[in-house]
């Protein structure tokens, strides 16, 4: 293969070699990762620093490549759903939904209304856990140890709620083609109803403790500019895009399922920096609460409405064809593209991960900043490594 000819000589770590080949004077090449506390897993970033300033950086992916797309071609249509819970452990419900939605498109299945509401409620609750996890971890990266504890207190309450319909705490895979696995029982709905006011009370504390904090503001304001043009070039979506001032949200702009029935806003920030992304995410938590409240009000009663009655067997055979389904995940637009050849096994499953594109913009955003800013930028992108590597 012609493009790889020089790889023959590059034994081992070609990234560092590449950097060293074009090395300037007075710079130092450092490796962040694959085991590094602030990369949230096994991302590796090769950084060339001049003193504390980053001259260039190159993320190295693939340390957690778990062959999801390959598995999509070997598992049955239904058997691939557990994988979706593991692509992005931050917001697995959205991935579940993206895949299930694509297959439903392919097969032309309409989902029972109660199931749709359950999906909305669970996905939004899951979005809260995702944002809380990000919030805590981000502040932890910036050096404060306590906020993550408070965030996890609330997160544990959410996990207790979500554990009921999914029997799991983290890697939810309870969406099924044509429905959801289990219904929300009354106890669970009651828990959600008590959680919402509780969390509304907690949010101001988060703001006082962290958002208003002088040190934090100085750390994130004006750091890591990812503006609208960069978003377009790199394909960034989600809070990164909204932090750049574009009010794009798949839930609003390409309404799927029943999202057009809810009244909610898309928070945006014009600053395009880490602080913008931070504020967008924190504001999104409130919007999620609003959606959940409305969904709970509109939720059809469980009587007579089964959530799984139209669901095909896991060994279903969708007709040949292709379908693309996009949903709004905690990190941005999740797209799943499936191709069927009419057999029990998908012909091709392509997962479009938002984190992949967001991470792509890192190198440009981090150029010229200092090492500590790299951490701030990395955190503000809200990375989940399995999603990057898939």
């Amino acid at each position: 293969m012609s493009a790889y000819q020089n790889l023959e000589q590059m034994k081992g770590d070609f990234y560092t070699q590449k950097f060293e080949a074009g090395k300037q004077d007075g710079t130092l090449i450092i490796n962040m990762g694959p085991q590094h506390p602030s990369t949230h897993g096994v991302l590796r970033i090769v950084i060339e620093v001049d003193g504390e300033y980053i001259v260039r950086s190159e993320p190295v992916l693939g340390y957690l490549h778990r062959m999801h797309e390959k598995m999509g071609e070997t598992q049955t249509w239904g058997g691939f759903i557990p994988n979706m819970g593991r692509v992005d452990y931050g917001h697995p419900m959205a991935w579940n939904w993206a895949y299930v939605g694509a297959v439903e498109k392919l097969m032309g299945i309409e989902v029972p209304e109660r199931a749709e509401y359950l999906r909305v409620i669970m996905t939004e609750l899951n979005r809260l856990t995702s944002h809380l996890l990000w919030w805590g971890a981000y502040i932890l990266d910036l050096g404060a140890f306590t906020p993550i504890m408070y965030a996890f207190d609330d997160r544990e309450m959410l996990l207790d709620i979500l554990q009921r319909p999914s029997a799991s705490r983290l890697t939810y895979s309870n969406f099924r083609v044509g429905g959801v696995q289990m219904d929300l029982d009354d106890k669970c709905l009651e828990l959600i109803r008590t959680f919402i006011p509780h969390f509304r009370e907690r949010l101001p504390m988060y703001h006082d403790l962290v958002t208003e904090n002088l040190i934090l503001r100085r750390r994130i304001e004006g750091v890591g500019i990812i503006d609208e043009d960069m978003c377009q070039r790199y394909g960034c979506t989600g809070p990164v895009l909204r932090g750049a001032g574009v009010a794009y949200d798949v839930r609003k702009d390409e309404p799927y399922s029943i999202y057009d029935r809810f009244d909610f806003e898309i928070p945006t920030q014009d600053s395009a920096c880490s602080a913008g992304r931070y504020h967008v995410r924190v504001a999104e938590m409130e919007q999620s609460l609003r959606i959940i409240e409305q969904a709970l009000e509109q939720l059809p009663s469980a009587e007579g409405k089964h959530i799984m009655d139209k669901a095909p067997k896991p060994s279903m055979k969708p007709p040949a064809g292709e379908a693309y389904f996009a949903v709004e995940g905690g990190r941005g637009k999740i797209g799943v593209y499936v191709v069927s050849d009419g057999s029990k096994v998908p012909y091709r499953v392509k997962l479009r991960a938002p984190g992949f594109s967001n991470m792509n913009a890192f190198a440009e955003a981090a150029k010229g900043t200092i090492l500590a800013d790299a951490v701030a930028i990395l955190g503000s992108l809200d990375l989940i490594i399995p999603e990057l590597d898939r």
Partner: protein
Amino acid sequence: MLQLLEGIPTQCVAKQDKVSTGRAWSVFLAPAQIVKTARKLYEAEYSLEDVFALDIEEGFLVLYHFNRWNVDERVVLRVLISKDNPTIPSIASIFDGAEWHERETRDFHGVNFEGNPNLVPLLMCVEDVDFHPLLKTDKKRKQIKDLLNLGEVVSCNKEIEALFAEAEAEVASDA
């Protein structure tokens, strides 16, 4: 969309059913046209969603998904390239984000993107440079007409029509 594509010799432009496929337009292109089209799309404020390949009997079908923020109009560009020389120009100079997508496609299918600034393995190990996990075995590989349908054709040239010919006939006979 159609205005946008003026001046570009497309192979096939077709409207797609949004409800069942999630996309508005499907465009077949020759490999040489992809960069030009991408530039037009960039100017029309489209952003790149993903780039990937499909292993079919006729060769590799490289797919590009584009979407706009203010208008929901997803476009898929399809480029069919042969197995013998799986090479296609890179659009990384226009959409920087394409660099990683292209490298990933290179990892999975072995499609070479000419002009990609850094075409080294992204997800795979260095040892696995020439191993492409998503290549199908001959038994499993299908023809394009068994997988995709064209949709509501606006314009189409002979080659593409020939590719889908039987499928159309089949659909007709089924109906």
